Structures are given as structure tokens and as C-alpha cells.
């Protein structure tokens, strides 16, 4: 070993100062070159450092919100200085006399109790275990009390009251539900899958009702869904609404979930976002996830992840599992069971063991997996959406859930790693390979901790968000209904729903609903209405892939110009160009060019577009070279670009080439003709210009004699034809013959 061997501590100190992984890797390589022992030592230190960081993060989370005591003269505001004394049967708590102990859950003991006034009735009284800040629990309950009072649903057990026991422990009073938990009820009565699904639909409706009142359950699991018999009919009842939120100790007391009972939510049922340390960025879709787990269990007899293993693996591991691991589909879960378990589970479902997996495979698998999506934007957006898909299955209609495609899986992989690796997931992931495991772990932890800090800050603003939840839930439900109306081809109703909407929360389902309705309006010639839908769509569609987004922009631009909203078009294209500054994909760039150059452009816009046009042109060359012939749409985009830049001969050349290339796509031919007419006229070839214009004009006008319909790639889509039409009007005006009227002047009869 050389005399200049650096100390491991020194290497570590330097490593810790570096801002990023790539540099650290380089440094580690350099510092430890040819010295595996040193490298090992440094990696051990890094490992320890990661643990230390975690240890301190846990500690400071306990401190983060701990100054309340100061406000209370004479101490203590936290917990109560009394040991765990069981409330005795027969004693009174507030207005309630305890009659019988009926259960004990993770966070408390439940009693049957009697209320004497104002009405004599039996209730369930749940005393929360020690370790909660009573004052805050009750305050949080009070905050939600009004909303809770609004809930009125046959499948929801009402929460009636809350208070503190003499020893200072919080308690809740609920409608007494005497029944069995849903999973036990189903198994005990050997209910088959169909009956289970019917019960499940009712549970979804209950949750949906609560969501529409702005209440998230946060702890949906079999023990919170009881089944009672009313006139011999099983009725599921969801209990404990509002309690999870009120007892969510994380804000005040214990942000890191140290023991199972302090964890709000139950490991096996909790959504990935709810398990995150802040746990506050949750909305109604978190309940949709838990419903998915419940459905998974009702069908397969297991939860997607083993709850005990999750709890035992520790919080960080558990979060990672929820965030990153894909559970087996229910059918695969059933198939992988030991024979004994399978027989038991099948018998409980009145099914043959050999056939159970087959019954689950396909639609039921996909319904469950859609509810369990890691990214809530890809789940069912509402509990109703989930219920409807289950109903579709029960009625043998096609379900909305679909197996994920390869591309989609890849996107998920990238998305999943975003937290760890930052936005440039793929690049960094490549760098990580070959780096020591401890280093990787350290940086992963550090990134996670940083993220956590950010989330904690966000959490403080979340109280305000709660009020917005109700609106969001409503908006999602409306989008959901619109999507369903569309599948039933009830477009007018769907449109009416969407029309009344403010900006809804981003979601894939919502985007496709707006896109469909927008398209339908467009092919009816209702350009302005279509433009309104697309204006909303562009705001909703922040999640989808590049391909759809750019096409949406092209459509919106086309609609604005076609409806004569020229000022809005100018604004739109300026914003669009600013948003798409960084181009990534040639085909997308072609669309942006088309969307941005529907009308003549000023030099500022041309300058702003030119980086994008450069990439577009390069891609055009590449694609065309590969195909052996100029790509027609690429060529049209490039010709339009050249024309708008004043390069008339360049534009004419591209169009001429395309027209001689035996192109069979009618809309491309007409578009090329119009562009050629424009360019020829500018070049002084007036007779030729007039000729091209006349040749193309009749075909285009002819196309709009009847409603064009959505169209297809071969015949041309409506937006392609409108695009050709817009250029035709420009050419007509230029050639100074009589410009034909805009299509919107004589809208075709609605279909």
C-alpha cells in the first residue's frame, strides 16, 4: 500500500460533498483505483452514513412539529400521563354506558355501548389507544364533522360523536353494526365470485357517496366493511369513516410510522402515495387503490402483498415495495398457491380448484390491476368507475381495463424510478450500473430524503387542498360519466356534461373523453364548440404521451382558425411555441409546425420556431432516406415552413417532388397543390398557381359537401382536410380570384 493512500474518512467526506452520482462514481473510481480494500472500507462507511441519515431523518421528523407544548402553560399537551387502563364494562364514558367489548383493532378497542339521551339507542364506541394527541384527534374530527354529517348512505355506518375519556383518550361513537367482516362473510357462506362482485359494487357505491361529500376513508379493508343481514339480504356497511383522518398522528406526533398501530392505513391495503412519508398528498383515488386490494382479496383470498411481510420489512422497504413492485395478477396469485390453500380458497368460492385461476384470468385480472396502478392517474378515477367496470364484467360487456402494452410497461418503469433517479431516469440508470451497491444506496436514500423534505413542506399546504377534494371528486366522476356516455354513443349528453366543467384534474380518462367529444363536434362543423373542448383538453392532457399531446395541439389550432378565432389562435401558437421549445421527436415537430403555421407568421414567431424546425428537418431527411422517398407529411410540414420563411422555391420544389411521387393519399395531394399554388404565385408563376389551385379546390370543396366524418389515415382525417381547406382559402385570396366561403358558413346537417 502506498504512502499516499487516502484515508477512507477523507474519501467519504469528499464524496458526500459532491452534488451528483456521476461525479461521485468518478471520484470513487479514482480514489480507490487498484485498492479494493479502500473501496470496501469507503463503501461500508457510505452504508453507515446512509443509515445515519435515516436515523437523523426519523429523529428530526419527531422534532419537526413539536413545539406545541410551549403553548400550554404547565405542560403536557402530548399523550396523557396515565397508563393503559382498560375501560371497564358498565362504566360511563360521556353519555355512553359501556355494555360489552366487541372488538379490538389496530388503533383501539370497540365497545357496544348504550346512549341514554337524547335518544335511547345502542352504539359502537371506539376508544383510541394511547399514544395519540387527544386534542388534535378531536380537533381534526371536529373539522370534518360537518362533512361526515352529510353522508347518508345505506352502506355507510354513520359516525355520530367524538370525545375524550376521563383519562384523556379520544373516542368515537358510531352507528352500531352487528355483522361479520366482508371477507369472513363471503368465505363462511361459500359465496361464488359473482355474488362477491355484487357485494363489492355496493361497497364502491358507498365509497363513491363519501367521496362526493369530500370524505376520504383512508383505511378501507375487510375489517372496516361489515356485512349485516337485513330481511335476509346481505348488506355491506363501511365503518370507521373519518376516523383514519382524525387519528392520523403524523402531523403532530409521529411522522415516522414506528409500529403497526401508529400507521394510519393498513400496510396490506394502503396505496403507495398514502404510504409515502408525508402521506398527505392523497385524494379519493387512494381509496380506489384500497378498494382494488379488497377486490383482490375477495377474489383470490390473498392481498397483493403480504401484509405481515410488509409491516415487518420496515417503513422504507415497505414504501419501496408499494412504489416499485408489481404484485402478481389475482389469477397468477391463485395459481402459485400451495394445493391445500388453493382447495380451501376455491371451496370458499364454490369453485373447482382447477378452474379458479381460469375464472380470474382476463377481465377480472385487469380490473383489479387497473385499480392497483401505482400511478393514481392510471387507476380508475373514481370508485364508481371501478364499480361500473365490475358491472360491465357481470353483464358480459367489454370492460374498460386493459392489459398493459410493452411500451406502457416501459413507461411505467421509467416513471417508477423517477423519484430515485430524477427526471433523466434512463441516463442516470445507465450510470448506476457498475457503481458500488452502497454508494447507490446512499444516493438513493439521500434523494428520497430530499424528496421527503419537499413533501413535508407540501403537506403543510394540504389542509387547503382538502376543500378542493370534493370538487375534484365531482369533476372526476363527471368525466367518468362522460366517458361512459361516449361508449354508449350518447354524445349529446356527454358533451353537455363536459360543457359545464371547469378545468378538471389531469387524467388519461378525462383527456380521452374531451378528445372524443371535441372530435365529434368538429366533424359536425361546430368548430367553436370543438375548440372549447380542446382548450380544456390541452390543460387536462398533461400526462399522456407526446404523440397525443402534439396532435391535440394541431387539432386545437385548426379549430381556432376554422372558427375564425384568429386572436386566440395567435395567442395559442405563441404559447405553444414557447412550450415546445425543446423538441424531441421529429414527427411531433412536424405537427407543431403545422399547428403553428396555419396563418402567415411574423419574424418573431419564425425565429422562435426555427430550432424546432431544424430538428424537424433533420428527422424529415432521416425518415425520408430510410423510406427511399420523401415522407409526405414531413414534406408538407417542411414546405409550409419554407413557404412561411419566404423560401418559395424550396417550398415549391418539395411540393412538386411529392406530387410526382405517385402519392395515393388524396388529402396530401390537395395540400401539396395548395402549397404549390401559394409558392408558384409568389415566384411569379401565376398561370401555374391558378392551375394548381383550381385542380385542388374542387376536390377539397367536394369533401365538405357532406359531413366528412372522423376519417382515417388513408382517406385523411377531418383535421387534415380542414388544414388543406385553410391553405386553399389563403391561396384563393392570394390568387385574387373569389375566395370560396368558409365551411362554417354552411354547416352540414348533423348526423
Amino acid at each position, binding site marked *: 500500500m502506498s504512502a499516499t493512500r487516502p484515508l477512507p474518512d477523507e474519501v467519504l467526506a469528499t464524496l458526500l460533498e459532491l452534488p451528483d452520482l456521476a461525479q461521485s462514481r468518478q471520484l470513487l473510481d479514482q480514489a480507490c483505483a487498484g485498492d479494493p480494500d479502500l473501496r470496501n472500507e469507503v463503501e461500508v462507511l457510505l452504508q453507515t*452514513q446512509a443509515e*445515519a441519515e435515516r436515523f437523523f431523518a426519523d429523529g428530526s421528523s419527531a*422534532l419537526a412539529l*413539536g*413545539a406545541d407544548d410551549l403553548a400550554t402553560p404547565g405542560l403536557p399537551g402530548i399523550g396523557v400521563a396515565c397508563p393503559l387502563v382498560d375501560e371497564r364494562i358498565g362504566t360511563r364514558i360521556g353519555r355512553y354506558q359501556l355494555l360489552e367489548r366487541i372488538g379490538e383493532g389496530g388503533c383501539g378497542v370497540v365497545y357496544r355501548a348504550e346512549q341514554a339521551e337524547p335518544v335511547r339507542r345502542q352504539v359502537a364506541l371506539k376508544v383510541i389507544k394511547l399514544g395519540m394527541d387527544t386534542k388534535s384527534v378531536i380537533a381534526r374530527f371536529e373539522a370534518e364533522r360537518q362533512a361526515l354529517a352529510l353522508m347518508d348512505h345505506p352502506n355507510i355506518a354513520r359516525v355520530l360523536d367524538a370525545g375524550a375519556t376521563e383519562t384523556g383518550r379520544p373516542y368515537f361513537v358510531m352507528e352500531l353494526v352487528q355483522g361479520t367482516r366482508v371477507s369472513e362473510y363471503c368465505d363462511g357462506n361459500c359465496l361464488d365470485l359473482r355474488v362477491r362482485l355484487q357485494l363489492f359494487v355496493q361497497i364502491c357505491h358507498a365509497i363513491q357517496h363519501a367521496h362526493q361529500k369530500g370524505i376520504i376513508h383512508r383505511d378501507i379493508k375487510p375489517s372496516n366493511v361489515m356485512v349485516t343481514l337485513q330481511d335476509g339480504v346481505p348488506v355491506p356497511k363501511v365503518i370507521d369513516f373519518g376516523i383514519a383522518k382524525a387519528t392520523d398522528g403524523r402531523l403532530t406526533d*409521529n411522522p415516522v410510522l414506528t409500529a403497526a398501530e401508529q400507521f394510519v392505513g393498513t400496510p396490506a391495503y394502503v396505496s403507495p402515495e398514502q404510504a409515502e412519508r408525508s402521506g398527505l398528498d392523497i385524494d379519493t383515488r387512494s381509496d380506489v387503490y384500497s378498494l382494488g386490494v379488497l377486490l383482490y382479496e375477495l377474489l383470490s383470498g390473498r392481498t397483493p402483498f403480504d401484509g405481515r411481510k410488509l409491516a415487518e420489512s420496515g417503513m422504507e422497504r415497505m414504501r419501496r415495495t408499494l412504489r416499485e413492485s408489481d404484485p402478481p395478477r389475482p389469477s397468477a396469485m391463485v395459481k402459485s398457491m400451495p394445493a391445500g390453500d388453493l382447495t380451501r380458497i376455491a371451496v370458499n368460492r364454490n369453485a373447482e380448484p382447477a378452474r379458479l385461476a381460469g375464472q380470474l384470468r382476463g377481465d377480472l385480472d385487469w380490473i383489479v390491476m387497473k385499480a392497483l396502478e401505482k400511478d393514481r392517474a392510471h387507476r380508475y378515477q373514481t370508485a364508481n368507475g371501478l364499480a361500473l367496470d365490475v358491472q360491465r364484467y357481470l353483464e358480459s360487456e367489454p370492460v374498460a381495463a386493459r392489459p398493459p402494452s410493452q411500451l406502457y410497461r416501459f413507461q411505467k418503469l421509467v416513471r417508477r424510478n423517477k423519484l430515485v433517479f430524477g427526471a433523466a431516469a434512463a441516463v442516470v440508470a445507465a450510470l448506476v450500473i457498475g457503481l458500488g451497491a452502497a454508494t447507490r444506496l446512499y444516493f438513493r436514500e439521500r434523494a428520497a430524503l430530499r424528496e421527503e423534505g419537499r413533501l413535508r413542506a407540501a403537506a403543510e399546504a394540504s389542509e387547503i387542498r382538502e376543500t378542493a377534494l370534493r370538487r375534484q371528486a365531482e369533476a372526476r366522476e363527471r368525466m367518468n360519466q362522460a366517458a361512459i356516455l361516449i361508449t354508449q354513443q350518447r354524445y349529446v349528453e356527454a358533451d353537455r356534461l363536459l360543457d359545464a366543467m371547469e378545468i378538471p384534474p389531469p387524467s388519461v380518462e378525462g383527456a380521452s373523453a374531451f378528445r372524443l367529444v371535441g372530435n365529434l363536434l368538429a366533424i359536425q362543423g361546430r368548430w367553436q364548440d370543438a375548440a372549447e373542448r380542446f382548450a380544456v383538453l390541452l390543460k387536462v392532457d398533461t400526462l399522456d404521451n407526446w404523440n397525443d399531446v402534439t396532435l391535440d395541439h394541431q387539432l386545437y389550432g385548426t379549430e381556432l382558425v376554422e372558427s375564425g378565432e384568429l386572436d386566440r389562435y395567435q395567442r395559442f401558437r405563441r404559447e405553444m411555441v414557447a412550450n415546445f421549445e425543446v423538441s424531441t421527436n421529429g414527427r411531433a415537430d412536424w405537427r407543431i409546425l403545422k399547428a403553428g403555421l396555419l396563418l402567415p407568421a411574423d419574424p418573431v414567431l419564425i425565429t422562435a420556431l426555427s430550432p424546432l424546425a431544424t430538428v424537424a428537418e433533420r428527422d424529415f431527411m432521416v425518415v425520408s432516406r430510410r423510406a427511399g422517398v420523401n415522407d409526405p407529411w414531413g414534406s408538407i410540414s417542411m414546405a409550409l415552413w419554407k413557404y412561411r420563411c419566404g423560401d418559395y422555391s424550396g417550398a415549391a420544389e418539395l411540393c412538386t417532388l411529392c406530387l410526382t411521387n405517385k402519392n395515393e393519399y388524396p388529402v396530401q395531394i390537395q395540400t401539396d397543390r395548395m402549397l404549390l399554388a401559394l409558392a408558384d404565385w409568389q415566384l411569379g408563376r401565376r398561370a401555374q398557381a391558378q392551375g394548381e389551385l383550381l385542380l385542388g379546390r374542387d376536390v377539397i370543396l367536394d369533401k365538405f359537401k357532406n359531413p366528412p366524418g372522423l376519417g382515417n389515415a388513408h382517406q385523411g382525417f377531418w383535421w387534415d382536410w380542414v388544414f388543406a381547406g385553410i391553405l386553399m382559402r389563403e391561396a384563393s385570396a392570394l390568387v385574387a380570384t373569389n375566395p370560396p366561403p368558409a365551411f362554417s358558413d354552411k354547416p352540414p346537417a348533423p348526423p
Partner: protein
Amino acid sequence: MSDITSALHAVGREPNQAAENLLPLVYEDLRRLAAARMAQEAAGHTLQPTALVHDAWMQLVANGDRTWQNRAHFFGAAADAMRRILIDKARRKSRLRHGGGLARLDISELDLAGTTPDDKVLLIDEALKSLELADPVQARIVVLKFFGGLSNEEVAENLGLGERTVGRQWASAKGWLFRWIRSRS
């Protein structure tokens, strides 16, 4: 408030004694401010120690006191006060959780993985006492950052160190404390 200001001025002359005098004053001030804040806030709201310290300082400034030396010492004293307050609280909570009665945690009986955040705070406080002997500067950084919630920049200003040094020392102190705790559990 004027008491604090004069006590702060005294710090410059007789550091140790003045710091001891300062602590109860800062403590009282934090207490008053916390009570006022809690009365204004909605029920169920909780106070962040860091925010409280900064607010207390802002009140001082509003009263016309804005010399650098005072600010540094105020934050130092506030961090000490916060340490005591938070440790008391963590100890109470931890005692409840461990069945009451225990005056202090017995480190050797703890399973590190199973400790609550409050236990962790107590363990860090214990370890910090050793670090105070081994490396007073690092220990001071821990008090200011961990209990006082100061930023690297504020700590650097407070101790007259470079910001990068603070970052490095803070990381290294965390490693040291953690190893100390682990070696004894």
C-alpha cells in the same frame, strides 16, 4: 423584549454567564410567542420549532435590534432552549410508550431498528453529550442544525465557519453519533 436585548448585549462581555442568563429569557419569549400563535391558529394546528425561533427573532428585529452578533447569539440560545424543550417532550412520550417510570432510556436494551423517532431523539441527545467532549464544534453544529433547525448558512454565520465546512462537519457528526449509538446498543 428589552430584557433579551440587554442580555444579548451582555453576551459580548461575559459569554458563559450571559448565555446561561439568556436561556430562560429566550425560553420565556418562545413560550409567549407560541401561546399567541396557538390562540390564532385553527384548532389542531401545530407549531414548528424552526418557524417559532425565526418568528421570535423577527419580533426582536421589529423592536429595532438588528446587529449580527445578537442574531447569532439569539439563534444559538434559541437552539439550546429548543433542545431542552424537545428532549423533555420526547422523554415524556418515550416514557409513556415504554410503560412509564423509566427515568432515561437504557441504550443497551434497545433494539435500534425498533426504536421510535422519539427514542432516536433521546439517543442522539445522549450521544451528543459525548461528542461535546470529543469535538465541541461539531457538537455545536448538531445542536444548531438538529434542534435549532438552522440552515447551513445560518450555522456558518453563527459559528464563523464556511458554509461548506458546516455541511461537511454536519455529515461527519451524524456518522459519528450514529456509530456511537450503534456501538452501545
